[in-house]
C-alpha cells in the first residue's frame, strides 16, 4: 500500500482522463489520486494531494501545460511530471524538455507504454535521452537565430535555456544564476512566448506572412 504510485491526471478531455484512470486503477501498484481539466484547478489540487507523478496534456484550455509543469516542478520538486500529447514526438520532446518533465507519452493506446513510463518516472528516472535534450536546445537556438521576428535569444535566455535542458527547476535556476525565482519565471514565460510562435499552426501563418512579395 505504501509502495503504491500516486498519480494525478490533467487533461481537458474527460474521456481521456476516464480512460487513463481506468487503466491505472487496474494496476495493483497505482492509484489515481486526483484529476483536473485545466491548469488553474490542477495547481491547487496537486498542492493538496502531492502525487508521485503528474500526467499533463501540453495543451490546456487556460494555458500551456509547459508553464504548469514548470510551476509544479518548482513548488513541489518531488512531483515528477509526464507530458501527454496528441502531437508527434518532435513536438512532444520539445515540450517535455522545456517543461522540465521527466518524459513524454504520446496518446497511443498500446504503443505509448504509459504504465511503464509512469513506473520509471516514479522511480526517479528520466525518459529523455540527454543527447536528445541537447539537440532540442541546439535546434531552438538555431531557429531563433534564423527567425528575425523571434530575434536571437539573449545571453540570459540562452543560459536559462541550457539550464532548463539540464532539468533544473525555476527555483534551481534562480539559485544558480543568483536571481529570484519570479525573475526566472518571467524569463521562461518570455522564452515560451517566443517559442510559442514555433507551434505548428501559428508557425504556418507566421511563415506565410513573412514570405517576400513576388515569391511566386
Amino acid at each position, binding site marked *: 500500500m505504501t509502495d503504491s504510485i500516486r498519480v494525478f491526471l490533467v487533461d481537458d*478531455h474527460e474521456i481521456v482522463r476516464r*480512460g487513463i484512470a*481506468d487503466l491505472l486503477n487496474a494496476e495493483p501498484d497505482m492509484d489515481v489520486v486526483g484529476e483536473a481539466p485545466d491548469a488553474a484547478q490542477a495547481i491547487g489540487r496537486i498542492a493538496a494531494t502531492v502525487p508521485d507523478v503528474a500526467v499533463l496534456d501540453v495543451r490546456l484550455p487556460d494555458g500551456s501545460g509547459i508553464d504548469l509543469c514548470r510551476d509544479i516542478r518548482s513548488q513541489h520538486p518531488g512531483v515528477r511530471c509526464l507530458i501527454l500529447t496528441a502531437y*508527434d*514526438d518532435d513536438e512532444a520532446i520539445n515540450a517535455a524538455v522545456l517543461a522540465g518533465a521527466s518524459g513524454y507519452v504520446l496518446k*497511443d493506446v498500446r504503443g505509448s507504454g504509459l504504465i511503464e513510463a509512469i513506473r520509471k518516472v516514479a522511480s526517479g528516472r528520466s525518459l529523455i535521452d540527454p543527447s536528445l535534450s541537447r*539537440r532540442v536546445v541546439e535546434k531552438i537556438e538555431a531557429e531563433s537565430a534564423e527567425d528575425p521576428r523571434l530575434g536571437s535569444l539573449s545571453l540570459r535566455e540562452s543560459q536559462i535555456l541550457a539550464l532548463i535542458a539540464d532539468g533544473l527547476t525555476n527555483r534551481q535556476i534562480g539559485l544558480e544564476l543568483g536571481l529570484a525565482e519570479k525573475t526566472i519565471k518571467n524569463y521562461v514565460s518570455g522564452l515560451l512566448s517566443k517559442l510559442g510562435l514555433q507551434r505548428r499552426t501559428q508557425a*504556418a*501563418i507566421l511563415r506565410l506572412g513573412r514570405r517576400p*512579395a513576388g515569391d511566386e
Partner: protein
Amino acid sequence: MTDETISFPDAPRSQLDTALADLVERAHGVMETQGRLRALLRANQAVVELMELPQVLHRIVEVAVELVDARFGALGVISPSGELEQFIHVGLTDSDVEAIGHLPVGHGLLGALIDDPRAIRLSHISDDPRSSGFPAHHPPMDTFLGVPIRVRDKVFGNLYLSNRSTGEFTADDEQLVKSLAGTAGFAIENARLYAETRRRQAWAAASAEITAAMLSADGDDPLAILLERLLMLAEADLVALTAQAFPGDEIEVTAAHGAAADPLIGRRFPATETVAGRVFDGGQPLLVNEGSAFHVEVPAHDSGPVMALPLTAGGLVQAVLVITRARGRQSFDAADLDMAADFADQASVALELIKSRTAQQLVLVQEDRARIARDLHDHVIQQLFGTGLQLQSIAGATDGATGKKIIESVSNIDGAIAQIRTAIFALAMPRTGESVTVRHRLIDLVTEMTLSLGRAPTIEFSGPVDLVVTGSLADDVLAVAREALTNTARHARAEMSSMRLTADGTAIQLTVDDDGHGIGEPTRRSGLSNLEARAHARGGSCTVDSGPTGTRVTWRVPAPELSARS
C-alpha cells in the same frame, strides 16, 4: 451735239477702247480671281470637314491638284529622321505605281524642300540642279510647285504638284497653294488631336477593362491578357515582359506576345545593353525610336521603335514592359508613351492587388487547414484515445478470445491515431519555406509515389525524427525510401505498402514493407546494393527480406554525433 458726240478724236477713242478693253479684262480677272478664291474656299472647306488623318491627307492632295489644275500631286510626310515616311499621291495610275516600284524617300528635289522648307516653283524640273532625275517608268513631269505644310511651326510634310494643264505654275498658284497648306496644317493638327483623343479613349477603356478582367480573373492568366491588349493598343509587333532578380543583374524575358515571341521567353540579356535595363535603373518610361545609339534588342528580331515601361510596386520597379514595332514602321510619339505609361501604372496596381489577393487566399486556405488540424487534434484523437484506453481496461478484465479481439480493435484505433497524427502534420505545415523537415519530405515522397504504387502507402513516424534526421542523413533516408518504394512499384505487384521511420538518441531505422510477390532476380537488386552502401558509409546495415508474400527493407544506422550535425 450729235456730231460732236460721234466726232471724238481717234486717240481718246482708242484710249476709251483700251480702257474698256482693260475694264473688261479686269472684270474677267476679278471674275477669275473670285472664281479661284471660291475654289480656294471650297478647297479649304473640303479639307477641314474630314476627321481621320489618312483621309485628310488624301483630300489635301486632291483639292490642291484641282485648285491649280495640276496633273499630279503628292503629299510627303517627314519622319523624325528627316526622310519621307508616307507618300500620298494623286494622278498616278496603279500601273504607273507598279512600274516605278517604290515610293520616293526624299532625295533630289523632294529632299531640297525637306532641307529648306520654302516654296519651290519651276518651269522645268529637269533644268533644276537639285533634281536627281526620275526613276525608270516614271511618267514625264515638267512644271513643279512644292510647298511645305507646317503644323504648329513644325514642318509636317510637303505638298508637291506638277504638270499644270496650261503653261507653268504662276505666282497666284503659289499663293493659293500656300494658303491651302496653311489650312491643311490646321486640318492635320485637328485630325491628329482627334485621333489622339480616340486613342486615349481606347487606352482608357482597355485599361479599365483589363483591370476589371484581372481582378475577376478566375483561370485566365492576367498577364497574358495584359500583353495581348498592349500589343493591340500600341499597334505593336511584339510586347515582352522582363524581370530582373536584383539591380544590375541580367534581365530575363518572362512573358512575350506577338511576332517571334515564343523563342524569346526565358532568354536573358545584359542589363547595360537594353532599353529594359535602363528602365530598371531609372524607373521612368523610355521611348527609343530608330537611330538610337544603344541596343534595344530585348526582342531578338529586327526591331524599330521601342517603348519600355516600368511596372512598379512599393516604389520599386518589379518588371519592365517592352513594346516594339518592326523596323521601318511608324515611330511611337510622346502621346503613345504617355498613354502606355498610364496603362502600365494601372496594370501595376491591378497586379499588386492580384498578388495580395492570392496571398490572402493562401492565408485563408492555410488557416482553414490549421483549423481542421486543430479539430482533429482536439477532438478526434482525444475521443479515439479515451475510447481505446477504456477498451483496453475492459480487455484486461475479459478472458480468452473476446479479450484478444478487443485488443486487436485497440491496435486498429492506434493505427488510426497514427494516421491522423500524420494528417495533422501534413495539414498544419506550409509546404514551402526554409526548414523542410524529413517528415515533410517523406510525406511528399509518398504522395508522389502513390500514382505508380496504385495505392497510397501508409506512413508512420516514431520518435523525434525531425530532431535526429537532418542534413545529409535526411537525404540518405529520402533516397532509401524512394528506392525501396520504387522497387515495390516496379516489381512486387503489391496491394499494400507501408513505411515507418523511427528515431531515438541512439539509432534511426527506416522500414519499408509490401505484400507483393518479392523482388526476385538478382538484377533487380542493383538499386538495393546502393542502399547497403549508404548504410555502411554510416556504420549501419541494410537488410532485405524478400519472399513470395512480401518484402521488407530495413535500413538502420546509428544516430549521428551531435557535433557532426549539419
